[in-house]
């Protein structure tokens, strides 16, 4: 890290590889190699709809190994596309790995990626043009798992249906993603969450229409282990140290600059600020998030760690403490008003993932941010059922709808108010 000739790309690559290898080592340390491998294999044929906490299903080792391999799949795709690592790709890898703890597997994401590739080729684009859509579009991995393992089909037909369904899903995602961007105009960071949620409505309705009834089993690990509790805080500290080493005396000045960016899509903090500032920001978000989880006495399980890793990833692509606290405050206020415990699954995930709406606070101020968070909680507690839990970025879906509502009102007011 201290090599002054090391460029941004190399530093980021090392950070990502250290993170992904650490996941495997931490999992092996907790569960042992054999149990981890067995758990990993079990996850590949397990339903993955929300909320299936892989830590509860397969143990820490299997879940962490799965998360790491999902992250490595993302890294390999980025390298194959010839795209330089930066804010959005860093966010994508951490998000993919994070959701590898509760829904994504290397097997259920690849058909979607291939579908996005076909879509790109149809309109004479290269895969790299749609790379971000492919990486984040893996949020619909549980749809493929549903088709393969929940419909009760014989093995070969089940695999063929899942493969075809996954490719078709990926094929349609780019077209929807562009429309959804215009809907909220970049004020919902998880645009693929809105995209996948929208697609998921149709997929869920179709599957239900064909006679399938979704089981509503929820797996939510509520135990504790030192590996689960310490992983995110330790990784966060390492990011801060890496940021300070790579940026030297300018590190905190760069961080200060990042805190002035509203965060609207696409805000690559590595480009608009610096790599050092982005890494420190990412680490700070992980630390603050972990402290919040600790204070409300929520478990550090698969979904919670996955959520923390996701917002840390977006610490290089739109989220920072200054633009996210109003939204989180809104979620906490809504949770308290409705009488829900802060550490119950819905509110705890909403508090973490509500930072998808950070750009609203960054652009329009504290009050719209708090309001967005308040609305978001109520929405996200409903939207999961709409798509049968098949869209892992359920908060991105609810956040997109919330952003669209708020943006519509502000836009109407600004564009219709007489100026002349």
């Amino acid at each position, binding site marked *: 890290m201290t090599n002054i000739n090391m460029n941004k790309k190399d530093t980021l690559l090392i950070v990502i590889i250290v993170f992904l290898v650490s996941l495997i080592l931490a999992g092996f340390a907790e569960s042992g190699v054999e149990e981890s491998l067995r758990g990993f294999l079990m996850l590949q044929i397990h339903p993955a709809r929300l909320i299936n906490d892989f830590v509860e299903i397969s143990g820490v080792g299997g879940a962490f190994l799965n998360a790491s391999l999902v992250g490595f799949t993302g890294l390999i795709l980025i390298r194959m596309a010839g795209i330089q690592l*930066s804010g959005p790709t860093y966010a994508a890898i951490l998000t993919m790995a994070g959701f590898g703890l509760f829904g994504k597997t290397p097997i259920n994401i690849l058909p979607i990626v291939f579908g996005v590739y076909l879509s790109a080729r149809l309109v004479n684009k290269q895969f790299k*043009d749609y790379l971000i859509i492919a990486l984040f579009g893996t949020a619909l991995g549980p749809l493929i798992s549903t088709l393969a393992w929940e419909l009760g089909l014989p093995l070969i037909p089940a695999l063929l249906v899942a493969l075809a369904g996954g490719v078709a899903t990926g094929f349609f995602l780019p077209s929807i993603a562009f429309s959804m961007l215009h809907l909220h105009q970049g004020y919902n960071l998880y645009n693929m969450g809105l995209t996948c949620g929208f697609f998921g409505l149709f997929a869920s309705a179709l599957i239900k229409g064909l006679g399938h009834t979704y089981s509503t089993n929820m797996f939510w690990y509520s135990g504790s282990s030192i590996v689960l509790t310490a992983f995110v805080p330790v990784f966060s500290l390492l990011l801060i140290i890496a940021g300070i080493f790579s940026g030297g005396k300018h590190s905190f000045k760069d961080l200060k600059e990042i805190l002035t960016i509203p965060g609207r899509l*696409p805000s690559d903090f590595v*480009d608009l600020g610096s790599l050092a500032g982005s890494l420190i920001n990412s680490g700070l978000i992980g630390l603050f998030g972990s402290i919040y989880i600790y204070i409300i006495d929520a478990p550090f399980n698969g979904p919670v760690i996955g959520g923390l890793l996701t917002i840390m990833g977006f610490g290089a692509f739109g989220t920072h403490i200054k633009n996210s606290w109003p939204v989180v405050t809104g979620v906490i206020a809504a949770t308290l008003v409705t009488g829900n415990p802060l550490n119950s699954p819905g509110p705890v995930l909403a508090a973490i993932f509500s930072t998808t709406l950070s750009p609203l606070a960054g*652009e329009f101020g504290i009050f719209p941010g708090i309001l967005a968070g308040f609305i978001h909680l109520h929405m996200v507690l409903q939207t999961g059922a709409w798509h049968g839990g098949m869209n892992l970025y359920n908060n991105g879906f609810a956040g997109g709808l919330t952003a669209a509502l708020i*943006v519509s009102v502000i836009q109407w007011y600004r564009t219709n108010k007489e100026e002349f």
Partner: protein
Amino acid sequence: MKRKDFVLQLIGEISSYILEEDPMRMVISLHQETDGLHLCIIDDNEHSDAEIEKMTKALNSRKRPELAGYYGAMTGQDLLGSSRLNLLGWQLKHADVTRTGSGIKIDLWLGGDGFDSQKFTIPEKE
């Protein structure tokens, strides 16, 4: 994307940027060739050296196909928030921002893989 739509998006974003400072005059000139185009925008507003430097940097930012191919769809389409020149920068071959007597002139050159710079007055790269 059809060329007409693409040009409209570019003009939308760059003119949105210029109009934010409420100029008394804005001129847009377009010169098209088979594989590329030259867009020139002139205004009559005062601009600081720092702003011109920032514009030049944003418009000549490194190519980001993964962002241009996806988020580039927002170019010139947004009605809220400030305009963002980096959305343009990812898609340009070259850009220049120069002072005129009363304001600035922004030259944007765009083109596909077959772009022939000889047909345009694009400056030689040093």
